[in-house]
């Protein structure tokens, strides 16, 4: 219906209108600029964080199952005392034996204790008790010496593995194998060193000393009813759900839980944490979206205001256009298009600022945002929203322009 030349001219006119009032236009579009800039920055940060967390989880193995004691929610405390809820070594053995989808499983227990080498005594060093299966559930290489073997565990040998921080803090030589250190009044032979994995997300402090001893030895350092968790390695990632239900079945059976009783433990595949993180990220995105919605609303009102000013400033022009044959819908389209172009220009400036801020984020040290980037979908979304604001808030002024009586418009001062 409307000629193609009309569209082209209307866009050119809209741009020249913006150029002629550049200061006013940018001020008007400020709400849109701020809204779009902030949403693109937040999305860039979240996206970067998400990539970061996902790679982190990858490094720590997607095929892992975490097993830990957990008192069921919503039941009387005395019904499930912690003493009964805690994991037992026999349960871990049963999982190792009776769960076909589980390749290996290791109990893990941590304690803080004093460690001595020669004259040097370090207090509160993290000592972790593990079984040899740990070497399969964690992919942390042995840099010197050897990993734990089943004899270390079965005979509860006083052997240990250290990481580089522990070696340094205890003043041991770079290759400490064959040296002895004292943990809890017993002498342990250092049999190897284990790689340190850098991680901020999973709570492993990068600059901490770690010492590993056989689980059987760690048990002796603790009280009788001590708590521990376990990590299982699944045969393949697709078996996650199966492995989970196998473990659940074995534990329920061992604990003699009836059909209507709740689990007194928690079995979680690592991807559940990923899901949780994704849900969290989606929540933050939604909140950011709400804030942006408000600033777009404010921006939209600004647009409406300036378009009303524009319509009244150009009343004679509207009258003339009608006199030479512009239909009401052509006038409506012209002003609607002008509002949309104004919003799109604001959106473009906002995306640009967001992009610059996102690049700025990657330079913040230790924020974990070094992978922050504005994804394409965020840019497309920004422009769509800007255009929508233009249409919605430009509609009223455009309708007003389209309804002007040509004579009255031409007579307007």
């Amino acid at each position, binding site marked *: 219906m409307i*000629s193609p*030349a*009309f569209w082209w*001219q209307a866009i050119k006119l809209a741009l*020249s209108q913006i150029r*002629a009032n550049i200061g006013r236009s940018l001020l008007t579009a400020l709400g849109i600029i701020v809204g779009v800039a902030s949403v693109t920055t937040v999305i860039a940060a979240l996206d970067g964080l998400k990539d970061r967390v996902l790679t982190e989880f990858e490094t720590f193995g997607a095929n892992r199952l975490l097993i830990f004691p957990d008192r069921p929610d919503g039941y009387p405390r005395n019904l499930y005392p912690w003493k009964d809820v805690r994991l037992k070594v026999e349960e871990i053995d049963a999982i190792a034996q009776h769960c076909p989808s589980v390749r290996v499983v290791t109990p893990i227990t941590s304690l803080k204790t004093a460690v001595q080498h020669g004259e040097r005594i370090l207090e509160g060093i993290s000592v972790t008790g593990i079984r040899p299966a740990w070497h399969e559930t964690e992919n942390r290489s042995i840099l010197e010496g050897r990993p734990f073997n089943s004899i270390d565990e079965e005979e509860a040998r006083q052997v240990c593995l250290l990481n580089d921080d522990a070696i340094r803090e205890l003043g041991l030589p770079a290759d400490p194998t064959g040296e002895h250190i004292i943990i809890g009044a017993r002498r342990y032979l250092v049999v190897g060193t284990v790689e340190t994995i850098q991680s901020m997300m999973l709570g492993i402090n990068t600059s901490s000393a770690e010492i590993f001893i056989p689980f059987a030895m760690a048990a002796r350092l603790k009280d009788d009813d001590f708590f521990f968790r376990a990590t299982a390695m699944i045969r393949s990632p697709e078996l996650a759900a199966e492995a989970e239900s196998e473990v659940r079945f074995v534990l329920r059976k061992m604990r003699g839980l009836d059909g209507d009783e709740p689990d007194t433990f928690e079995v979680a595949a690592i991807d559940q944490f990923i899901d949780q993180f994704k849900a969290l990220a989606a929540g933050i995105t939604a909140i950011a979206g709400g804030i942006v919605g408000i600033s777009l609303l404010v921006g939209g009102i600004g647009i409406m205001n300036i378009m009303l000013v524009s319509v009244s400033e150009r009343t*004679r*022009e509207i*009258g*003339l*256009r*009608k*006199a*030479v*044959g*512009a*239909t*009401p*819908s*052509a006038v409506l389209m012209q002003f609607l298009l002008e509002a949309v172009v104004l919003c799109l220009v604001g959106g473009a400036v906002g995306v640009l600022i967001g992009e610059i801020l996102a690049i700025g984020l990657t330079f913040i040290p230790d924020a974990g945002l070094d992978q922050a980037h504005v994804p394409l979908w965020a840019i497309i979304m920004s422009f769509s929203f800007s255009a929508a604001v233009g249409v919605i808030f430009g509609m009223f002024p455009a309708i007003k322009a389209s309804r002007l009586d*040509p*004579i009255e418009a*031409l007579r307007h001062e």
Partner: protein
Amino acid sequence: MLISLRDITKIYRVGIDTVHALRGVDLDIGENELVAIMGSSGSGKSTLMNVLGCLDRPTDGTYLLKDRRTDRMGAVELAHVRNELIGFVFQSFELLPRATALANVELPSLYARGERRRDRRKRAREVLDRVGLGDRMDHRPNQLSGGQKQRVAIARSLLNRPAILLADEPTGNLDSTTTADILRLFRALHREGQTVIIVTHEDEVAAHCERVIRLHDGRIASDLPISEDPAGRLLEEVAEITESGS
């Protein structure tokens, strides 16, 4: 008949007052006439022009333009009629200030349908040449004199080859030399077959026309060939101007 008005009235309501701008006008204008509409201020000239130009609808009466009832048309249809059949020239030119002369002249084609969309650039150049502004196409209105602005406006009104050219006091803002130029242009267009209707206060302008319609208080007081109208006494002068110009 190109234009045929029957018992046209136009009543404005201002608060509780009613203003009878037109009180039953009967008027026929044929192809290729050159008509002046005269009358004192407030006699209804502009109102009649706006009705003729389909910018305004009469309160009552029938208006046949090329045998079509325009008084019954809706806003969209009237817009198309204005685009295709009417060329309007205003006292205050009404050019878009930021557009070049060429872009101003092209304006009606943006709202055109079918054939009239084609070759707009070429046709705009042609009509600008026709009004003698071939060398001012890229000038903006503020770079043109009053007479040149009015020529651009006339070129714009001619773009879609209108059936009638309506000019409401086209020389009201111009000095006498420029007025003579513009009138010579209207006469030339008339000789080429264009129907032209000019509203004016000045006998000097009316004297260039062939027929003079005088309005008084919303009614046609007289409708005479120029030779019988009082303005006709200036005819000799007009002949001189026309000769010296061409």
